[in-house]
């Protein structure tokens, strides 16, 4: 028997709880339950046998937490514990049930919530998966996941390191989200795409509370569904549950009839629950799902259905943007993040991510950018590259269901990229061009779209995940082309029933009044069936066209979005600059911490011919000095100091743009100050405050982030020749990492000075671990930098 055979049955019965059953037999609170496989095999034999007798078709081996971290102090290996666990289940199962390797969360949070790296999580899971396969498990069950990224790591490990089928279930709370904010739709879209054999929900809730979650789950996947609810909700009056086994079985059987095929129990359930459930469903049938799964993409915490026009923000792209190119070359991730957040604030639903430049290592940078973006935004991403290695790295790094941009009709790109799309469960943009270029007519473009679709379907990529780009050509070069593009959009939409995507801004290249042309072309394209315009959402005319389209096509129910954007009292418009602010000199705006106004004033001064460096040295730095002096005198406080720095930053941004746009290119960059929060530490707010201040005194800063390996700090100093390194640690336990980092810098003979700071540090301790300077606060770090860098 195998899982496929079982899945031909109307219902498949799983087992009930393991933990509560072990505790009942004497497992102490806080003990590692998996060690019972070796220390109390009789308990396991007994529990598994009772479930087989109750009618379970699949037994979960007692391997939930059998990973290297949790077993670290037990003196037992993963292989030992897993093989004993699988063997015990196998003995009880005989030929009557399948044995599942049960894999739970690692017990540490992955980045960006914790410090565990995705690839490290993958390695820990891979060890368990290989042990389970070697021990002869029939399938893998990944369960109780709260972090979609952790579930991805486990599922990828199972798929890549074994050939076993895999069931995945996550735990949702009463607010319909997991502890880490993952919703049912994101789970379903992502795990279905990655090739799980069945997905579902376990733990946390009882069967009654799971009903609405099941309704939602059914909409987002066509895979078989699995449920293992708790015995009920904890009864506040005592240690039990609010419902009995009969009610449990009746409620869960109802969900089975509603369409869930694999059913069992989690905490608090026992053989009685399973036996009753089996009896309830004797001869019953489960409802089949009628509605097709909608086209949609997602991040770990947000799903976006393509059921209306969805805007893809185009601004994370260096093409033709000198300031962006400079940021990429300098590793200035903050700039990229600011571009992302500005677009989502303006209403972008999805963000296109392109970091391709000839002199940039895209294979390293694209995944890194994806991780940085996903730490601060929940918008789904469109990964924009022609390099398959960069795309694979980014698809692996990207939590959720991404869009790959792009393939085209050239068989070579289809062969290189479509398998990645399939493996990682992404959607894909197909450009209607091929090795012979862009065809002139809509009919020819339709033919290429059909070829791309056929190639995708042949690999098992669903039709709903293929988006076609009919290509916008510049109307100033070829006036008839716009009409042909629009005709192609309509044909792809009607004849192939595919979602369509189109870069809009290109249409007006070389024309005056570009926003006007773009806006009208966008409206025409939406009328022809454009679903996914790629545009600059910061231009309100473009977002206005989308809002109007939704209003006029009755998609925006009761004009809610439209009124929120333009309806006066219903939604406050961005506040006007404070009265008279514009009239104030730039230095005063900085001192007052008025960001937007300071940026505008600096732009105005630069446009009037002010020398950028004179602006920095003559206005910005003196203003910051005045605020700094007041801070030291106790007349101003930290938030005001940072606000002033933020205002100066806005002015600096204008200066940087001016410098980047110069004919002779940006000035040669000075060696930066390298900043890092040390290995193991994730408290980075202090380090970030220091960064803002340093940058706004005109220092170049290379920020390595938090939880940084000593070796990475040394490498950065070696590569940039940084004369000063700033290290931050907030915990007594991570001071050790600070000491190690300094020791490595010294050992390698790097000629840099080191300043350190953080709540638990003292000047004495700083000297003891070999630091050159101790910075009591952010302001002092600026004084140190001035002394060192001159």
């Amino acid at each position, binding site marked *: 028997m195998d899982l496929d055979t079982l899945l031909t049955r109307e219902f498949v019965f799983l087992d009930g709880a393991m933990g509560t059953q072990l505790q009942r037999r004497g497992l102490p609170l*806080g003990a590692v339950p998996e060690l019972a496989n070796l220390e109390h095999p009789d308990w396991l034999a007994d529990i598994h046998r009772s479930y087989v007798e109750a009618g379970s078709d699949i037994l979960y081996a007692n391997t939930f937490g059998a990973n290297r971290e949790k077993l670290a102090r037990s003196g037992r290996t993963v292989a030992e514990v897993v093989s004993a666990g699988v063997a015990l289940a196998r003995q009880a199962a005989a030929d009557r049930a399948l044995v599942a390797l049960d894999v739970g969360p690692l017990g540490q949070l992955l980045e960006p919530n914790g410090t565990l790296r995705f690839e490290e999580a993958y390695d820990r899971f891979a060890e368990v998966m290989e042990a389970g396969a070697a021990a002869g498990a029939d399938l893998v069950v990944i369960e109780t996941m709260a972090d979609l990224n952790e579930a991805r790591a486990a599922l990828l490990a199972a798929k890549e390191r074994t050939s076993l089928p895999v069931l995945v279930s996550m735990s949702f709370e009463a607010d319909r989200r997991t502890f880490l904010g993952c919703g049912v739709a994101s789970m379903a879209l992502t795990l279905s795409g990655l090739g799980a054999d069945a997905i579902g929900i376990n733990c946390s809730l009882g069967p009654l509370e799971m009903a609405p979650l099941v309704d939602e789950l059914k909409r987002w996947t066509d895979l078989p569904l699995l449920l293992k609810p708790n015995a009920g909700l904890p009864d506040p009056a005592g240690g039990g549950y609010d419902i009995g086994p009969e009610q449990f079985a009746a409620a869960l059987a109802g969900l089975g009839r509603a369409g869930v095929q694999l059913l069992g129990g989690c905490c608090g359930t026992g053989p009685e629950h399973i036996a009753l459930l089996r009896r309830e469903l004797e001869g019953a049938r489960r409802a089949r799902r009628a509605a097709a799964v909608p086209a949609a993409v997602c991040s770990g*915490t947000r799903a976006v259905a393509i059921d209306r026009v969805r805007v893809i923000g185009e601004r994370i792209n260096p093409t033709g943007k000198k300031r962006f190119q400079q940021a990429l070359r300098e590793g200035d991730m903050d700039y990229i993040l600011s571009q992302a*957040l500005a677009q989502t604030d303006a209403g972008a639903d999805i963000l296109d991510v392109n970091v391709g430049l000839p002199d940039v290592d895209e294979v390293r940078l694209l995944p890194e950018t994806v991780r940085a973006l996903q730490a601060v935004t929940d918008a789904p991403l469109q990964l924009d590259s022609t390099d398959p290695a960069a795309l694979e790295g980014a698809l692996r790094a990207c939590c959720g269901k991404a869009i790959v941009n792009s393939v085209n009709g050239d068989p070579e790109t289809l062969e290189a990229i479509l398998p990645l799309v399939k493996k990682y469960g992404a959607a894909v943009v197909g450009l209607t061009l091929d090795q012979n270029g862009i065809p002139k007519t809509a009919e020819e473009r339709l033919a290429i779209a059909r070829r791309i679709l056929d190639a995708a379907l042949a690999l098992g990529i669903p039709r709903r995940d293929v988006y076609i780009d009919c290509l916008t050509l510049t109307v100033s070069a070829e006036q008839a082309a716009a009409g042909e593009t629009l005709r192609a959009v309509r044909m792809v939409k009607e004849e192939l029933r595919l979602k369509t995507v189109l870069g809009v801004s290109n249409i007006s290249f070389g024309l005056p009044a570009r926003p006007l042309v773009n806006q009208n072309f966008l409206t025409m394209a939406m009328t022809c069936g454009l679903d996914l315009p790629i545009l600059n959402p910061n231009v309100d005319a473009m977002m206005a066209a989308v809002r109007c389209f939704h209003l006029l096509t009755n998609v925006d129910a009761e004009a809610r979005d439209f009124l929120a954007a333009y309806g006066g009292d219903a939604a406050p418009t961005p506040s006007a600059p404070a009265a008279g602010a514009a009239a104030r000199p730039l230095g005063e705006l900085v001192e007052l911490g008025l960001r937007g106004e300071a940026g505008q004033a600096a732009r105005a001064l630069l446009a009037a011919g002010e020398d950028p460096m004179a602006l920095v040295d003559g206005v910005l730095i003196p203003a910051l000095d005045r605020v700094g002096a007041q801070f030291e005198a106790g007349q101003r406080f930290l938030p005001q100091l940072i606000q002033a720095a933020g205002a100066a930053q806005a002015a600096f941004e204008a200066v940087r743009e001016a410098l980047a746009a110069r004919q002779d290119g940006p000035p040669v960059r000075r060696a930066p100050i390298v900043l890092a929060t040390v290995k*193991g530490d994730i408290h*980075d707010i202090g380090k970030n405050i220091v960064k803002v201040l340093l940058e706004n005194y005109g220092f170049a800063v290379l920020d390595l982030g938090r939880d940084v390996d000593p070796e990475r700090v040394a490498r950065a100093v070696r590569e940039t020749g940084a004369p000063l390194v700033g290290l931050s640690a907030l915990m007594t336990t991570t001071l050790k990492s600070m000491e190690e980092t300094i020791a490595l810098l010294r050992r390698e003979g790097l000629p840099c000075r080191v300043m350190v700071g953080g709540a638990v540090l003292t000047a004495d301790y700083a000297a003891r671990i070999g630091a050159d300077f101790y910075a009591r606060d952010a302001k002092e770090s600026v004084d140190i930098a001035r002394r060192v860098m001159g």
Partner: protein
Amino acid sequence: MDTGEVLRALGYGDREPDGATLALVRACAGEVRRAAVPRWRSAVLAVLGEDEGGVRLEGGLTLPGWSIRDHLRGCDRAAVFCATLSAPVDALLRRAQAEDMARALVLDCCASTAVEELCDRVEEEIRAGFPGCSFPHRFSPGYGDLPIQLQGELLALLDAPRRIGLCASERHILTPRKSVTAILGISREALPPVEERSCQRCFLRGRCQYRLRGKTCGS
């Protein structure tokens, strides 16, 4: 939320903030409140006794060091608890740091205040279960010589990773970040006042914000 507490954390002491700062603090407090999903777990364990390893609790947990020994003197039971504002607050703080550091700093202080206030509520709930008993102030790993390495064990005992999504990193940092673990002694006898009991031996003694104002954290 006690905005006075937030302002103290921002370095204002008892001085009046300007209107803009006060407005920022209030707005940030609201954002934290909306993002937070407060969750907690607790267990009450018998204090079995002391040996050279520390204070032994029911269930096999040993709390090492002199400070916890001092702290639990006279207590026959101890409540162990953990509380978290949950992951969405971390996401809010990460995003704010990419946008505006001043706001990020204020949000961070608001979140720290919010998790302490959550602990106050949990503590109150525990105290209510033991009428007539006395309680020292709560004590956390990292105070005195109670090692921070204890975090993982406390969380495992409370099944916190699974029940409320609260974990410790390899270096014993609680994640989500705005979280606390604590031990609260329970005594059938009256306990001496806070000052005598703990300030003398507290590691924050030299720079405690409360003592600077002639108060204690327990008052």
